[in-house]
């Protein structure tokens, strides 16, 4: 990996690990200090690597520098030392142990995840914090994800951190009774993180797929921990694995998106499909049917390339159920597509016209698809409307290709 790719890559994977460990060490009230130290560590890397070359083991280098910076910070800043050191139980000021072992990193991240998803702050703020602390997102990226601006996100983050401070939230595993309540937000956050990687606004493919795998790894942490190894978490992991299995087939050599029908299924990752199937099976122990269960089962059907009536009837019924418990525009659109596959386009057109998702370009893509072969004039008009509404170049290009095919 080239240097200009390596540092952003490491930022994605290591920022949250070191931050989580330091936060746990300092206590959540000093979350900014932890963030600063880790940011400085990366800044040092950016400044020195171009001159001195990339270290042999870049991760170890980052850990060592972060440790040193932490010790320096503690020694240098008396105020901080006065406040923090008494709180670091049973540890002398001279020899603060900064444990960056694999186990402590995993534990700290998981505990951090639960601390962030504390009920005292809003779900939105929880997701902002998780994206910032655990996913190393920049303020800009968070603002983009929330269709908001930097100021709003900064304020939201500030208030959330203040709240965590005031409530004296401990970075620890919640009590057993509390796990289920918090898990819902934790899973939603991981789901959003995965989505962020799955649909890239930019064309930076490597980086974005990295995000998806980070989400998979974080969800894996939940599975490794007995108390959170629950059906919903397994279902979410299955969902992620099934979709990730198609990554190698989703882009051509030029980075253009390859649509599902045109994908070479020999490129689908059978190992990930198998892993997904295992976790979906685990998820089915317990009689729960969350939205993750439904989405994972739909995703499983999409690992079967053959267009059978059974496939589309099953997908249609799964979407029918999904929409009853968790409506989203895309689920509504996909359900209508499945209806066309199962019961024919004329019936689907009637249902599609009722949806009226008029500011959604995918809505017009769907209408275009449905009218294709039935009324090509209308199909074209809908695709053109979709083209106008589409925001990214990739989407515009895909729609343009579709119009040409008419």
């Amino acid at each position, binding site marked *: 990996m080239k240097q200009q790719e390596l540092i952003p890559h490491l930022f994605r994977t290591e920022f949250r690990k070191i931050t989580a460990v330091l936060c746990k060490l300092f206590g959540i009230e000093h979350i900014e200090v932890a963030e600063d130290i880790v940011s400085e560590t990366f800044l040092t890397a950016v400044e020195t690597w171009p001159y001195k070359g990339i270290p042999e083991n870049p991760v170890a280098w980052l850990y060592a520098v972060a440790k040193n910076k932490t010790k320096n910070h503690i020694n240098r800043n008396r105020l901080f030392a006065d406040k923090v050191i008494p709180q670091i139980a049973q540890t002398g000021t001279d020899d603060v142990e900064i444990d960056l072992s694999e186990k402590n990193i995993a534990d700290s991240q998981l505990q951090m995840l639960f601390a962030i998803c504390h009920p005292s702050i809003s779900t939105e703020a929880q997701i902002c914090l998780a994206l910032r602390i655990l996913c190393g997102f920049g303020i800009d990226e968070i603002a983009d994800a929330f269709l908001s601006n930097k100021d709003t996100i900064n304020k939201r983050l500030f208030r959330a951190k203040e709240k965590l401070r005031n409530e004296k939230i401990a970075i620890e595993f919640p009590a057993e009774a509390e796990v289920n309540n918090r898990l819902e937000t934790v899973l939603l956050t991981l789901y959003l993180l995965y989505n962020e990687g799955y*649909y890239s606004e930019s064309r930076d493919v490597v980086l974005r797929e990295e995000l998806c795998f980070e989400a998979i790894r974080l969800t894996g942490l939940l599975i490794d921990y007995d108390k959170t190894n629950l059906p919903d978490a397994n279902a979410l992991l299955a969902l992620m694995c099934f979709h990730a299995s198609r990554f190698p087939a989703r882009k051509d050599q030029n980075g253009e998106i390859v649509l599902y029908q045109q994908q070479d299924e020999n490129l689908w990752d059978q190992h990930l499909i198998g892993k997904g199937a295992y976790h979906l099976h685990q998820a089915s122990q317990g009689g729960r049917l969350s939205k993750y269960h439904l989405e994972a089962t739909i995703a499983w059907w999409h690992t079967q390339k053959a267009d059978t009536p059974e496939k589309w009837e099953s997908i249609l019924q799964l979407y029918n159920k999904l*929409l*009853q418990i968790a409506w989203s525009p895309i689920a509504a659109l996909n359900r209508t597509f499945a*209806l066309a596959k199962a019961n024919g386009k004329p019936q689907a057109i009637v249902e599609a016209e009722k949806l009226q998702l008029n500011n959604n370009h995918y809505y017009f893509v769907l209408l275009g698809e449905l009218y294709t072969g039935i009324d090509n004039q209308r199909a074209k008009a809908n695709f053109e409307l979709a083209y106008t509404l589409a925001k990214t170049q990739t989407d515009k290009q895909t729609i343009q290709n579709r119009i040409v095919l008419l």
Partner: protein
Amino acid sequence: MIVYGRKTCTNQSQQNIFERMCPICYATFDMGCISNINILKLSKMEEYILIFRHQDGSKVASPEQIQAWMKQTMNWIGGIAAQNKFVSGTGLPFDDAKVVHHNNIVTNGPFGEIKETIGGYIMVKADSVDEAVEFAKGCPVLQGEGNTVEVRKIAKGDGIH
């Protein structure tokens, strides 16, 4: 009235805070996801209950027929849910049905001299009773002659209604 009170699913509102695209669209019509989190506008619609009235609940249908109806019913409900207008609902199996009469006399099943019975209900959100009626028109129960769907507004529980 078989259904009493108003069921609101807090779980659903929690999940609807963010309307976020799931990654599945790539797999179906393959156009990618919308990647932004929008705050869902709170709806000011009324809620209505659609009650399925069967003229003769003692009629027996074949398993194939029942399965076909199930599919149609699920697609009908899915169509309403796709418009984000589904609230809740359930079928009411005829097995083990009891009727408690005046003086606490209990009889088996709702089918005595009167065979008409209720087979289920769904609750929907709608801008007007007319819209709720349009939903009701698609109900597969109406394929049975003599069956009806009763459309009723849900009381708001605000002390006025």
